[in-house]
């Protein structure tokens, strides 16, 4: 817990857990010494990891019982393989019996692990179904995105199913990643080498402005911890009502309106014009100033 200035972006998944959770409160399920490694990677003669790139377990956060998932973006891009996915599904199933105050998802993943093909895709669809079950049972999922892989592909979908999404400016969220779009549609459609453009389109500030992320935080592990505690306390004080049909229809209408409004937009800058008095200043705004000007998420 020492070192207040630890970057969330640069930290490993285990480092993030140790800085986010109450000291010595974490119990890992399926820990590395169980050696639950990927059978698919072994068949391909590729390196395996003892946790298959995801750490799951039980902990407390400011005394509240939580279950938590942390993906390791540096192992095959945090990709979801069969074992990796089974660990996440198992944790979500456990949430139904343990009833923690929330399940925290520290997403850092490019999506499905292509080495594992159908097994990975099935794992992701099982995660989607499990996430919906857990939230239908009144246990909220909170997603946190600030790692180098962001949350893309199937993990982008899972993130958007979560009740709350906390991002840093460095975090990215999307469906197809920039390199995939460039490969399929050409460099004129999306130049994935243009880092500033990539972040203006997929980064935390645009996602927060559009309301896809509900809070922007600094790239510091303690900032993510504070945000998580704040969310837990808010949901404890005021449990969310299940989505009624009219709420879902209103959300759908809002999305249709947004689609019509920004249909021709090519860059985050065109979207910021709608939310900020000085859109050109958005990239240099501090997190506090940005959150103040962005107001309450839609």
């Amino acid at each position, binding site marked *: 817990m020492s070192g207040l200035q630890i970057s969330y972006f640069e930290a*490993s998944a*285990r480092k993030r857990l140790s800085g986010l959770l109450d000291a010595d409160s974490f119990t890992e399920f399926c*820990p*590395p*010494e169980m050696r639950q490694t990927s059978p698919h990677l*072994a068949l391909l*003669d*590729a*390196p*395996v*990891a*003892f*946790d298959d790139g995801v750490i799951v377990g039980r902990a407390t956060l400011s005394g509240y019982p939580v279950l938590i998932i942390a993906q*390791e973006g*540096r*192992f095959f891009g945090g990709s979801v393989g069969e074992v990796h996915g089974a660990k996440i599904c198992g944790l979500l199933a456990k949430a139904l019996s343990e009833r923690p105050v929330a399940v925290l998802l520290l997403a850092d993943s490019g999506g499905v692990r292509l080495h594992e093909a159908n097994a990975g895709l099935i794992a992701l669809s099982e995660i989607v179904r499990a996430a919906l079950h857990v939230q239908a049972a009144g246990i909220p999922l909170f997603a946190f995105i600030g790692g180098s892989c962001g949350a893309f592909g199937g993990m982008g979908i899972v993130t958007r199913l979560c009740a709350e999404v906390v991002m840093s400016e460095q975090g990215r969220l999307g469906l197809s990643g920039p390199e995939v779009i460039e490969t399929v549609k050409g460099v004129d459609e999306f130049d994935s080498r243009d880092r500033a453009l990539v972040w203006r389109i997929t980064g935390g500030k645009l996602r927060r402005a559009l309301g896809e992320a509900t809070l922007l935080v600094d790239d510091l592990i303690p900032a993510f911890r504070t945000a998580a505690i704040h969310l837990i306390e808010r949901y404890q004080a005021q449990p969310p009502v299940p989505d009624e049909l009219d709420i879902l229809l209103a959300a759908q209408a809002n999305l249709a309106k947004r689609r019509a409004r920004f249909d021709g937009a090519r860059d985050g800058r065109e979207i910021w014009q709608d939310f900020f008095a000085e859109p050109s200043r958005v990239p240099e705004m501090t997190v506090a100033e940005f959150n103040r000007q962005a107001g309450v998420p839609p």
Partner: protein
Amino acid sequence: MEKFTLILLSSRPTHEVLRSTICGVVSSGNLEVLVESKPNRDDCTVVVNTSAHGFRDIWEAVFRDFTRRHPAGGLSFTINDAGATPAVVSLRLDQAFETCCGDGI
């Protein structure tokens, strides 16, 4: 992948290893080291699973240095390696040892 096991004589650490430790991440030029305790405390065992073939001699040299720097008897090291250089391997071994046997833990 190339896999082999090494057994090296080493003195016993001053601290009891209470729980296993994992250090590092399997990514390009990096590795993970899992440290566990084992019954025979007069030597340490090393299981290496590496993507870089043909470097067993160098792994042996790195571990000989390590067992001279630290009392590693009774410890078992299991490694998943994705092409880490000897310097990175030494650093991770020191970190892992510090975490499971160092003072102040």
